[in-house]
């Protein structure tokens, strides 16, 4: 495998946008050859580093330029193998199911990286996968009088279009979201989950795309103000309407098992509410619920936190404290009474379990 062209045609578009070319999967030998070459200093490696640096500086300005180390190559190889699962060759006669499972297993091993040691490493991994969740593929179906031809992201040959009028050739183009398609298959979903686990920031920033498999187990990173600020900025631009339901569901899953990071997740949800309260034109819970009923738990979480006095920092003074408390009352009114009671019990149980653990 030519490392420079692979970087140019696969890794760089994945990090910067553009056409991502997928060929065969990356096996152990190919990975070894990639690691052996110093790709960082190649022309494509420099351009990839520039693109990644722009991404990480957009998250927090102090982030250094990411380097293309072995972990990065492993992560990219895992993504390539994930995308290969949607390649037409993966369905060919010469591909056995057992080999395909072997590929997924190997790719999961590739993605099983140790947790990032710093927030800069966190951002560096995310910069590789920046466009993973907005990848699309153009599928073309060519129908003619004797049958049809399906092309999944492949270049269209000329032959099926010959004598188009005579053969009654019709073409149908359809854009498919690759991540959503991958999530349909349980094995591929396992690999996707492993990749997201290797890059926790990607998981946090693309939580709406990961619904209903979104997991807040990496919530501990939200304790870092820079990370929290970057995620909040992304959530605010996406809008509460989009993010509220998966976020509250994931936070409730953590609270339900009193799992690590539950209190951080709750604090983060409350933080998002406070950002909404401080907005120039805050949206009222009742108005939002009228548009989208799935946000009910999102407001119920804040109302439950308010009952336990965990909805705002204790040093907030009037008149702001009154505004926040009024908002909490509005959240409680908008939510079902029984649901707020349930969630308040969950939060209480989560806190007491944590104190006992101490």
């Amino acid at each position, binding site marked *: 495998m030519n490392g420079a062209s692979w970087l140019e045609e696969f890794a760089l578009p994945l990090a910067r946008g*553009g056409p*991502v070319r997928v060929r*065969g999967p990356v096996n152990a*030998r190919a990975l070894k050859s990639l690691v052996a070459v110093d790709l960082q200093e190649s022309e494509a490696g420099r351009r990839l580093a520039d693109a990644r640096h*722009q991404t990480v500086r957009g998250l927090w300005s102090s982030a250094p330029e990411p380097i293309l180390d072995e972990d990065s190559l492993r992560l990219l190889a895992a993504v390539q193998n994930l995308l290969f699962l949607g390649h037409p060759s993966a369905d060919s006669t*010469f591909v056995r199911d057992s*080999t395909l499972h072997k590929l997924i297993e190997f790719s999961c091993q590739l993605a099983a990286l140790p947790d990032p040691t710093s927030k800069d490493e966190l951002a560096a991994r995310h910069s590789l996968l920046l*466009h993973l969740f907005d990848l699309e593929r153009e599928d073309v179906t060519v129908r003619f009088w004797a049958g049809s031809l399906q092309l999944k992201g492949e270049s269209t040959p000329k032959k099926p279009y010959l004598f188009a009028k005579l053969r009654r050739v019709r073409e149908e183009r359809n854009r498919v979201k690759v991540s959503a398609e991958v999530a349909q298959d349980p094995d591929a979903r396992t690999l996707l989950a492993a990749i997201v686990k290797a890059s926790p920031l990607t998981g946090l920033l693309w939580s709406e795309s990961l619904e209903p498999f979104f997991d807040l187990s990496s919530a501990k990173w939200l304790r870092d103000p820079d990370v929290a600020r970057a995620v909040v900025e992304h959530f605010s631009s996406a809008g509460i309407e989009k993010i509220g339901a998966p976020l509250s569901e994931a936070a409730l899953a953590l609270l339900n098992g009193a799992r690590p990071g539950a209190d951080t997740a709750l604090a983060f949800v409350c933080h998002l509410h406070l950002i909404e309260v401080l907005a120039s034109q805050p949206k009222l819970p009742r108005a939002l619920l009228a548009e989208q009923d799935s946000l009910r738990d999102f407001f119920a979480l804040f109302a439950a936190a308010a009952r336990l006095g965990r909805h705002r920092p204790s040093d907030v003074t009037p008149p702001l404290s009154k505004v926040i408390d009024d908002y909490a009352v509005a959240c409680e009114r908008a939510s079902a009474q029984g649901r707020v009671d349930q969630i308040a019990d969950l939060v209480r149980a989560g806190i007491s379990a944590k104190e006992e653990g101490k």
Partner: protein
Amino acid sequence: MLEPVSLHQTRFNAPGVQPDSRGILLGRQGVVLLASIDRVVGFFRLFCDETSLEDIHSRLKIEQVRGALDARQFVISFQVGSSYLMDRVSRIAATVGGAAFTGSGKHFILYRDRYAPLGYDLAGLETASGDYLLYGKTGALSCSRVKEIPFTQLVLSLELLAVPGLPPRGVERDLWLLVREGLAESVLGYLWRSAVPAEAALVEPQEKGSFSGATSPKWLLLHVPELPERVRALFSAMPGVEIFTQQAPRFLVQRGHRHPLRLAACGAAFGEPPERDRTYIFSATRKSVDVIEGVPALVPSGDLLRGEQSLTRTPVGALAASNAALVSSSFRPAQPYSVAVKLEPSQGLPLAQVATLVPWSQVDWLKRLVYLLPAPLLGGAMVMALDEGLFVWRREGIEGLPLGKLFAEVAPRVLAPLGFGLSPHAPPQVLSDYLGARDSKLIIFLSAMAPPVALDETEFEPLGRRVLANLEVAARSPDSRLIVPDRSEPSTVINDSAGIFPLWGMRGSKLT
């Protein structure tokens, strides 16, 4: 055949559909399938009672279709804006025994119900021929178009319904009378003698066709703001006279009846030419619809009476003789009787100044003055260039502009130089009507001696825009010293050839 759509499903077998913001599967078009024309009427009746037809008017089609078993059915198709609208359509369709579908092209799938809250998707496409392929729970129905029934034709062909209950007593307001041409003079005279104010126009309904007989009869259309009960009772029983109420702009329906559809909600269907420029009179007595081109130009009914009739009040005892004479005489417009309107110095209090004529020699002063004018004055002032100079007009008053020759509004939309008034001292509205100051027309007496001129209000321009000179605006691009991220291209996966054995060597792959 149909599969319920699941939450967050992104791929669908049905063509041309996609989930909306609520996740409900929706196509570009909606279709309602109904078994008979009376159900079509029932559907529109319920829909128009609830909301306006504007919601579905875009690409609305009513078509008679033939199914596989040669059964004639009706399909209503329209463009869908949102799932909320489609919910309403589906509910109404179910009420009248129909079914709602959504989709595009020729493939339409059953709209959502309680068993599939996000709608249905197809297990596979049918290849049957036909103009519509409607996928229901029990199978696909292929329908071929037989004919299209325009909505306007449906509205005009429906018979009026009698309104139950007793008619209201006392004076009734805003009524219209349709009087046969032969009775016109008698009715006009009767109304005048009874001191009932009215406006009238002679109208000629459209001919039905080349073989409908001789030319259509002319009618006198009268608008009566207040019709006393006694007169109303007389006209109700009089052959050749029909009483109408206005149920929507341009729609008159015979009193005591209503159209099956709420006509006020059907305005959108009649909003395009030529329907837009017509007046429709629904008669229950004759079971017909008279279509009149344009909006009748109404004039005070007194003006249509013969001269001696309007100038002398007939004694009550002489009514019968007078009426007989009028019936025998043919209907013709009133004899002209006119008094010249002229300007004369006004003796009363000065009126508010609303316009000024700035001579061309003072236009530069006006330009300089613009810098000092307050924003509200500059904003409301309109200007038009005339031979004599710039005519600046502002409805609310132009006291802040001390230039040129000032004008006051001596009658509605009639302007005269300050200090002058119109003679004779008739009511201002009468003078305004007489001078033809209607619609967008503005009548200006530029001087006491010259005849008035008419200006079109639409040709005025805002003063601010007129006086602003062209300003060159230079385009600037961002400085390169600030690093901004690249505008990323859309990320698209392209699957290149992976060879015949793409997983060759994968079996032995192991991380070292």
